[in-house]
């Protein structure tokens, strides 16, 4: 049997992109409306939220759709608010990392080779430090809270984004139309903004979309390790970290936050992959 040509690559295609975007939009809406939708204050430790034995309530208990956590707080309200913290932190951190990565990557590709080399060396080091350790160290040093969580995540994600930007910019730099632009007298800044950036941007945005999912995963691992946001602020990671010991007696405490996380990450992956495909086929 002669090997048949490349198989039809399985791809979610455009419906994947649309579905992912729709889910992200929905999660965004849930985040914005969290205060309205939540039946309780997510930090309210209700005495009625615990059973007579002081155990968390199971899902379906009266007034608590998903039950309560070990402190008697309504789980649904905590997931809505915690999801908002995780989603927003991931979004803001990746947005900041994208701006930083894009700037550094472009600067590295179009500045003097020596400076460019130095910048990429720095990005390599950012890639070399295990991200979780770096983010944990940053949040530990800055003190726990949403802001330091965002700084910690951005501190991890700028490096790969700078690498992606640089890799793409170097390819575009050698294309004939860049030479053509130079020949007709376009200045370097004009060339970069009008001719290079439009080719770099889609690739970076696709990678950034993937990074949002990874950042959310990071947040959950950080929370699990006990870094990141501070009690009583809910976040998906903090909820997983606090309630891990209850996974046998009250699996819902782990299951529901994980479900939220899985949906968020999967949607971000769908969007990222959906955006990446056309840019790859164009080359």
């Amino acid at each position, binding site marked *: *049997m*002669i*090997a*048949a*040509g*490349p*198989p*039809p690559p*399985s791809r979610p295609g455009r419906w994947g992109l649309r579905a992912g975007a729709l889910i992200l939009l929905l999660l965004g809406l849930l985040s914005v409306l969290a205060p309205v939708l939540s039946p309780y204050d997510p930090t309210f430790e209700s005495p009625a939220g615990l059973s007579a034995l002081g155990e968390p309530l199971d899902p379906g208990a009266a007034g608590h759709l998903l039950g309560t956590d070990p402190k008697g707080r309504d789980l649904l309200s905590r997931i809505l608010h915690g999801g908002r913290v995780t989603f927003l932190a991931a979004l803001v951190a990746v947005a900041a990392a994208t701006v930083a990565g894009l700037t550094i990557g472009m600067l590295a590709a179009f500045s003097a080779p020596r400076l460019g080399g130095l910048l990429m*060396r*720095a990005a*390599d*080091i950012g*890639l*070399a*430090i*295990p*991200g*979780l*350790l*770096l983010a*944990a*160290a*940053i949040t*530990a*040093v*800055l*003190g726990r809270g949403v802001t330091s969580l965002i700084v910690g995540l951005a501190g991890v994600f700028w490096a790969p984004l700078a690498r992606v930007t640089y890799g793409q910019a170097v390819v575009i730099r050698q294309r004939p139309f860049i030479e053509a632009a130079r020949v007709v007298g376009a200045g370097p800044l004009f060339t970069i903004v009008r001719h290079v950036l439009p080719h770099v941007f889609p690739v970076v945005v696709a990678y950034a979309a993937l990074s949002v*999912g990874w950042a959310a*995963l990071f947040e*959950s*691992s950080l929370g*699990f*390790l*006990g*870094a990141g946001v501070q009690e009583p602020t809910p976040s998906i990671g903090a909820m*997983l970290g606090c309630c*891990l010991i209850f*996974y*046998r007696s009250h*699996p819902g405490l*782990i299951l529901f936050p*994980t479900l939220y*996380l*899985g949906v968020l*990450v*999967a949607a971000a*992956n769908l969007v990222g*992959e959906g955006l990446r495909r056309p840019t790859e086929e164009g080359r």
Partner: protein
Amino acid sequence: MTRYLAGRLGSMVITLWLIATAGFILVELIPGDPARSLAGPSASATSLESIRQAYGFDDPLVVRYPAAMARLATGDLGYSFSRSEPVAQVLARSLPPTLLLTALAFAAELAIGIPLALWVVSRPGRRADRLLVAAAGASSAVPAFLVGLILIYLFAFQLGWFPLGGAASARAYVLPVLSLAVPFGLVLARLLRTTLLEEEDQAYVAFALARGEPPWSVRIRHQLPNALLPLFSVLALDFAGLFSSVAVVEVAFSMPGLGVDLFNALRRLDTALIVGIGLVGGALVALVNLVADVAVILVDPRARR
């Protein structure tokens, strides 16, 4: 080769130096008294003073920075107040089990990823092929410690086949290794599937098949070595991710190692230990990247030029 190695070692030293500088800056950034955060909340005035002396927190930055680097160069990573022993001693005890788990997980990742990719490529476009792509995507949407928890729940708690945690016996390693190797192995298989398919069109494949070599043998003997090569640097970078996941899985399975140290250090805000673990992790990843690059050169004559 020697020159290349010297250059790479040189750049590794620079990397370590920059990581150490990052650690130094982090400690400097701590709001409030850095001596206090290094000594812990219950430190006495005299021990605070001795730390201030040892680290020279009263000195200007230009004196402190070289002194800090000199201390690191001699292997002095500071003192962990939460463990009441030098950071270097904590790390020396915790590094071997973590390395063992990482190595086992990496080996299992290869053992899962490579055969899976070979099998899937032999049936292009079939259900298994599509399933792999989907499974790799799904497994990267769940953190490794949750995979671990699911495994604990099913195989340790429900079925009782394996211990719930710890590292007392070889059986205790099965679930943690699996919870790392399955997601990473699936992602590896997906990457390898792509590079294997890229080799499919090469003339040497058509020739080997025309010579009458069975397709499975062509795939293993000819396509696989070529398809693995571009993955070396990817795998090395992936090692940083694997190392992070190992730390978390250690905590989930309550196995001794750097992960549990980090977990406790974060709880107690033991800055010296946190930064020390970061330094060791960074150094390890830098070393693995170096090894991977050298391995490519040893394996692939084309890369030698």
